[in-house]
């Protein structure tokens, strides 16, 4: 029970801290991914694949939003907590490091829910044809957030300075989108990059989101891969996130 209370308190602290930043957050959560959607639509040229491209672009934008939320912003938050001494404050409490990480993860999930909902509404408004399977979409989003947040935790725990850490989170937050077949089909990638992209969680997240948006359910492989990646990244994150210094 204490663990649950701890997680909720960490979540509430982060949520309260963001009160004044709700506007910029919503703007950022919408502007970047929506902008990428429009950009991808414009550069894709022909509209012949009517259904597939808009759906891919919307799925890509959702994954982009998740990546920004969980690596760039969550990473930034964790770095800020670490390098402004707030983490020290948590370290003085009878609080398990994992409760702290889970509290921050819940916060990321809420952010992801807001960002994804906004993008789905935008998609609906501009007429993207979709038949989303919401329960599956939620599972995909949770797993993606866990997986990518693990990377944010790892960076925030290992960074030697705030600037080094934020550079890494920004680079990875965007890099994982553009190095994976998120906005375009895998066939369009160079062979070597295509193989490399099979190691990236965003590849599987994009495929799973696109499938669920089109009403498909055959994403067992993607879910399994994302689950394994989430266990690996979060496991590493928990291991590195220690209150006690050596």
């Amino acid at each position, binding site marked *: 029970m*204490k663990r649950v*209370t*701890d997680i909720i*308190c960490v979540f*509430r*602290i982060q949520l*309260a*801290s*963001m*009160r*004044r930043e709700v506007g910029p957050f919503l703007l950022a959560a919408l502007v970047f991914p929506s902008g990428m959607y429009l950009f991808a639509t414009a550069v894709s040229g022909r509209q012949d694949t009517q259904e597939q491209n808009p759906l891919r672009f919307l799925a890509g934008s959702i994954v982009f939003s998740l990546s920004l939320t969980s690596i760039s912003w969550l990473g930034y938050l964790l770095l800020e*907590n670490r390098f*402004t*001494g*707030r983490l*020290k*404050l948590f*370290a*003085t*409490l*009878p*609080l*398990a490091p994992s409760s702290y990480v889970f509290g921050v993860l819940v916060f990321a999930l809420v952010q992801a829910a807001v960002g994804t909902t906004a993008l789905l509404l935008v998609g609906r408004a501009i007429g993207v044809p979709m038949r989303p399977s919401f329960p599956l979409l939620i599972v995909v989003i949770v797993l993606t957030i866990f997986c990518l947040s693990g990377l944010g935790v790892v960076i925030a725990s290992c960074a030697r300075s705030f600037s080094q850490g934020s550079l890494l989170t920004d680079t990875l937050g965007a890099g994982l989108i553009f190095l994976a077949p998120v906005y375009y089909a895998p066939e369009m990638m160079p062979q070597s990059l295509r193989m490399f992209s099979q190691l990236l969680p965003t590849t599987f997240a994009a495929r799973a989101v696109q499938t669920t948006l089109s009403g498909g359910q055959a994403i067992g492989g993607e879910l399994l891969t994302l689950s394994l990646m989430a266990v690996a990244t979060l496991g590493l994150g928990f291991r590195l996130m220690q*209150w*006690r*210094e*050596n």
Partner: protein
Amino acid sequence: MTNALAYAEPETQSAVRSRQSVTVEEPVAVSVRNLIKRYDDGSEANRGISLDVRRGEVIAILGPNGAGKTTFLRQITTELRPTSGSVTVFGVDAIANPESVKRLMGITPQEAGLFDALTVREHLELFARFKNLSKLEAREVAHDVIAELDLVNETNKRVGALSGGQRRRILIGLALLGEAPLLVLDEPTTGLDPSSRRGVWGVIRRAVDKGATVMISTHYMEEAERLSDRIAIIAAGRLLEFGTLEELLARLDRSYRLSYRDPFVPAGDVQVRHFASFAEAQRHISLELLSEYSIARASLEDVYFALTGELFVRTETGAEA
């Protein structure tokens, strides 16, 4: 306020029940044995410190900057892993059970960041919840602590809008939440104005009256003299002395301090010399024809400078090695 150890782990509940109703026989609150902290670069911040802190007493830790005071306290609060040695808090091994031990402590770190967007009340209420207090208890405790630290007018202000001194008081308040039986305060009054500092002394005294044991590091001699039962002086990672003020003063061979101005250099600095007796100091006054002087019993400051200065000389001349 709520009972102190309502949140203690089952295994630690037998060790410490609460501040008010201490049923434990354990007379030692903190026991440190041969504590060594060596960093990767080979430097040693603590070199074999051993001491016992008795239940209910206030220990002041003094030492120059870089002496190893904060390193010492951070090993007790489990924030830093010792290279070797042992630390037990109310009989619980702090190295093996950091989380259990932290349930027994209220900690004010020397430097820690607050959440600027939270109000003072939110800060204290949310952090009280981490100490296993119910919502209602957390609200009551936060209310009490706010009043105790004279932050009533700031209750609903965002922490980011407060002065450095007010933020420092919040950090002290966070340590007070839940009435932990051990308070570890690392330079809690640094940056506070004299009035606030005295206010904090009052808060610490009241906590002690309720049964708390306190370890406090400070650079203020007056603070150590007024608050503590025993004083530890640390320099270069070593515990130089540990005892009551009287015991420390008794270590001085020359316990009378003569402060005077050289009659031939009236605009010069005040000179200080120490003497073994009052009569000896008077003789010096007559001999030197001093007209502007004062004689006083040596203070903690004299002990501090005698000890740390001596160590400095030993280190400089290589005798320390």
